[in-house]
């Protein structure tokens, strides 16, 4: 049986089609979920795609947080369901408190649309296991508010508990220093590009794996992330797997 992965469509989402396509390439049967529906239609995992949900008015992601579908996504996540938020989807997850931290205006104040390099910090999560090896991954970013922020105690805890799952890096995979504007494009603290919630079943990621999921797009480096999600959802569906445990308890 194929794995059904829901892609939430908010007014202003603009990466939903790309994400549907990427999930198909990754072997899933993608399902559109309209923002006004409270039902998740029994999907096995949920992706919040990129875009400008509700026009990004007030703060990116905050209005989307109060939509009917997000109440269901929060309940789904509470039960251990797999949720991946990409770009604007990450901002929605952060505003909803489903992943730690906040995404501030890029330090340059500019909207950035270009390729970046990230490295997976862990390969044992539902979002990274199919990547196979720790190597630099090339994929695009397209955001104005991507500067990851949390206070120092929170950042220390995230690192200690293995919740930092992707970091911006130099093209060769070497760590990006804080003020390296090319490698760490938006000035994210500790060069964080993606985080997990404490349960390890919700992931927010600023770069766009769906835009790097086929050779014709110029990079296939993102497909491992989507494939990880699809395979993890399939394993959960079979009852064979649970999201990676994060932290001590």
């Amino acid at each position, binding site marked *: 049986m194929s794995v059904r992965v829901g892609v939430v469509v908010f007014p202003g989402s603009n990466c939903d089609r790309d994400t549907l396509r990427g999930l198909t390439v990754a072997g899933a049967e993608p399902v559109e979920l309209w923002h006004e529906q409270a039902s998740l239609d029994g999907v096995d995992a949920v992706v919040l795609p990129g875009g400008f949900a509700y026009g990004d008015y007030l*703060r990116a992601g905050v209005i989307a947080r109060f939509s009917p579908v997000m109440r269901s996504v929060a309940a789904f996540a509470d039960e251990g369901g797999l949720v991946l938020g990409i770009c604007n989807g990450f901002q929605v997850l952060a*505003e909803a408190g489903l992943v730690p*931290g*906040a995404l501030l*205006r890029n330090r*340059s*104040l500019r909207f950035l649309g270009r390729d970046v390099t990230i490295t997976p910090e862990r390969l044992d999560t539902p979002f990274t296991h199919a990547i196979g090896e720790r190597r630099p991954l090339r994929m695009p970013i397209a955001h104005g508010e991507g500067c990851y*922020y*949390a206070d120092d105690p929170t950042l220390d805890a995230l690192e200690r508990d293995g919740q930092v799952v992707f970091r911006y890096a130099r093209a060769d995979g070497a760590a990006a220093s804080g003020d390296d504007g090319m490698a760490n494009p938006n000035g994210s603290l500790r060069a964080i590009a993606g985080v997990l919630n404490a349960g390890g079943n919700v992931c927010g990621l600023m770069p766009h794996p769906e835009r790097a999921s086929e050779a014709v797009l110029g990079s296939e480096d993102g497909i491992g992330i989507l494939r990880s999600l699809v395979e993890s959802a399939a394993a959960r569906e079979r009852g064979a797997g649970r999201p990676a445990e994060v932290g001590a308890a």
Partner: protein
Amino acid sequence: MSSHRFAVNVTPKPGILDPQGRAVEGSLGHLGIEGVSAVRVGRRVELTVEADGAAAARAVVERLASELLSNPLIEAYAVEELEGARV
């Protein structure tokens, strides 16, 4: 029921990088202005609340300010009651 007019002033918390504030600060030299520092750019939201008294109205605004208008991780807010209920 009575009408109450409020303003909610939302500002970046101390220590939070504010690139907009820095950009404003950077432009001051072009105006020939000196001696201005620590510019922080925030947002002001004005609204009218119908409620059973001033205290109830303020409670609604506090909830709105903390749950929607500000993100408590990065922003602080201050509620200000404005003169003249009707706009």
